[in-house]
């Protein structure tokens, strides 16, 4: 097992950078997810750690040792791809045992290690089958077994469950996480799926256009996004963001959505903090997740009347689009709480769940109320 560190890693393709000044530390035994849209540089980063891709500058350390000059085979790392890449003519057992062939382990040791891995992956009963007789999920379990059996220092996975259907992905998420806890290999896991990242990661590193945007626990990146990109990439439904303004009021702060589509009351400390945080008199973008838009069926002090537009029933809860003037904000309510489109209800933004961003840079003002 080993920690992995990337220091000022850069990778260019002609004049374009694919990875820019990437600094990232992955602790021993940690499960780190590299998350971002396609083309953000996450797979290139993973391949660079694996030694499948050269870097133009910077350093990659595994267990404290610089490795970028070593061959991929000498890095003691296992790689799992989205496509299963199993040997079709070998059984599941033989596929898993394959990487141990070159080692000089006795048959008994190989057998014991294959069976231990198979047990962890719950594929003991499938060991005699060939890949063609296995389901997609089981094939991927075998592929992971083959990676784990070597007991590598680090396990690198590139969208390993991206090709499976939704239900199976849900199951495999829990399984993979469980396996990680048992074998404790330092894991770097690449995905574009924020649900997967949130569900599995100890730590998430979010990338966009080759630049690292934020590193943090799932709770940190969800509750304290560093900028608008992270705010809107993490979470479903997407965080509401509207341009607006903050103005001082008598004993409170006015938060204006849009031009003056809606005026909401916030604690007076807000204006003070905005003044402290803002270097220029930029406009402010106001961000709030659907669960931070509080809805009531009766008029309550501090709530303003809004019209319900579209109601999306998702089962355990509804997502209701509310019209704050011309601004549409989505709220999360109990199932059936707002009866039908066109109904007028009362709403406000929960100040503890409201984020303020610099509209020019996209950076969060990091205001906590």
């Amino acid at each position: 097992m080993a920690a992995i560190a990337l220091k000022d890693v850069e990778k260019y393709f002609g004049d374009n950078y694919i990875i820019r000044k990437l600094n990232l530390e992955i602790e021993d035994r940690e499960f780190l997810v590299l998350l971002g849209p396609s083309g953000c540089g996450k797979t290139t980063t993973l391949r660079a750690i694996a030694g499948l891709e050269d870097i133009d500058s910077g350093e990659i350390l595994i267990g404290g040792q610089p490795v970028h000059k070593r061959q991929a085979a000498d890095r003691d790392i296992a790689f799992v791809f989205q496509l299963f890449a199993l040997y079709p003519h070998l059984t599941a057992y033989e596929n898993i045992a394959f990487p141990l062939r070159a080692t000089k382990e006795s048959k008994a040791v190989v057998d014991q290690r294959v069976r231990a891995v198979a047990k962890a992956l719950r594929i003991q009963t499938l060991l005699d089958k060939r890949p063609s007789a296995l389901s997609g999920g089981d094939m991927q379990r075998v592929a992971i077994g083959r990676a784990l059996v070597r007991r590598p220092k680090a396990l690198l996975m590139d969208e390993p469950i991206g090709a499976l259907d939704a239900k199976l992905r849900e199951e495999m998420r829990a399984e993979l996480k469980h396996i990680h806890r048992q074998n404790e290999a330092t894991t770097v896991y690449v995905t574009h799926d924020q649900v997967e990242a949130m569900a599995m990661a100890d730590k998430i590193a979010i990338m966009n256009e080759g630049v690292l945007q934020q590193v943090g626990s799932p709770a940190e990146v969800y509750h304290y996004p560093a900028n608008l990109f992270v705010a809107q990439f993490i979470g479903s439904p997407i965080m509401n963001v509207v341009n607006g303004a903050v103005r001082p009021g008598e004993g409170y702060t006015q938060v204006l959505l849009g031009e003056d589509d809606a005026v909401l009351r916030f604690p007076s400390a807000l204006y003070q903090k905005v003044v402290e945080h803002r270097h220029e008199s930029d406009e402010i973008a106001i961000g709030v997740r659907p669960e931070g838009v509080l809805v009531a069926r009766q008029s309550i002090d501090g709530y303003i009347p809004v019209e319900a537009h579209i109601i999306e029933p998702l089962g355990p809860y509804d997502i209701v689009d509310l019209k704050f003037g011309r601004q549409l904000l989505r709220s999360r309510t109990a199932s059936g709480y707002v009866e039908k489109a066109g109904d007028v209800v009362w709403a406000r933004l929960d100040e503890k769940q409201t984020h303020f961003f610099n509209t020019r840079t996209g950076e969060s003002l990091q205001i906590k109320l």
Partner: protein
Amino acid sequence: MAQVELRNITKKFRRHTALSELSLEIADGEFFVLLGPTGAGKTTTLRLIAGLDAPDSGSIVIGGADVGKWSAAERDVALVFQYYSLYPHYTVRENLEFPLKSKHRRFTAEEISSRVARAAKTLRIEHLLERKTDRLSGGEMQRVSIGRAIVREPRVFLMDEPLSNLDAKLREILRAELKDLQMKLGATFLYVTHDQVEAMSMGDKIGVLNHGRIVQIGTPHQIYHQPRDTFVATFVGSPAMNLLSGVMRDGRVVVVPGKLEIPVQREIAGELATSAADRVTLGVRSEDVVVGPGGGLEGQVYGVENHGVEKIVTLKVDEHLLKATVPARMAISVDSTVPFTFNPSKLRFFDAQTGAKLGSVKEA
């Protein structure tokens, strides 16, 4: 706009039965979603309604008339596909005009330009009208494809997974836009998808299709809360409904003797006793597995997933795994033992052999 009815439709491809005895009704102005996994027969159904294929038996009625002998053009329905199918070297405007310039239709130049303008305004693509379609983003291309359907003002819109090629964020935005569009147009929509979130969020009604048969038709609420069988129960909702196999004993479902025994409300127990063998499958959604003191049952925490506003906890009781939704702020650590219970009014029961719902259990 028109109402659509399928009566006992069967369609075979050689020896494979794609659809068997399929019947459904779509009301005028309704947003109807046909939901099912790959190969269920969803696209076949759309193609039959559009007139691109003919059923082996059964009839298709649009606006009160049997259209079995009508050509695709005469049926006056519009299809929107997953793939954009736009003409790449033409502008958005030319793409929108195209369906109106077919020789079957005689529209004046003013009529064409006013229809294109109206559609562009509805879809908010007015600023793109003079742009070539190969210079559009995926979301814009899909809006233009929908625009090509709108300008025709068809009686029925048929949509075949129109959002599935788009990324997650864009799908979320277009979901709401499509629903809004359908409400504005007051149009009849038949929308096909394998994505249960799309079905739940957009459909006035959902028809769940599996192996060429309709399993259940109902509102999203009915489908979610009163699934007719274990297929619907696990296909709709995320995470999938927990299913536990047990034996009815003294008013309790015994899954693991002494460790996982679930008391059942008296009237339901009575109903189950009269309707079924003693083996039942108990279904409970993750939000109805309540973790906390006073639970009465105990499970070991097998895994914890962060989902932002909430966490999904996998509990292990013997060899059984079940998922529970808890608030994000609840501190819960892997491998610890936690008390839990089930919301008694939300338990569902299915026949252990057939998977069919047992009893006429009412929603509390």
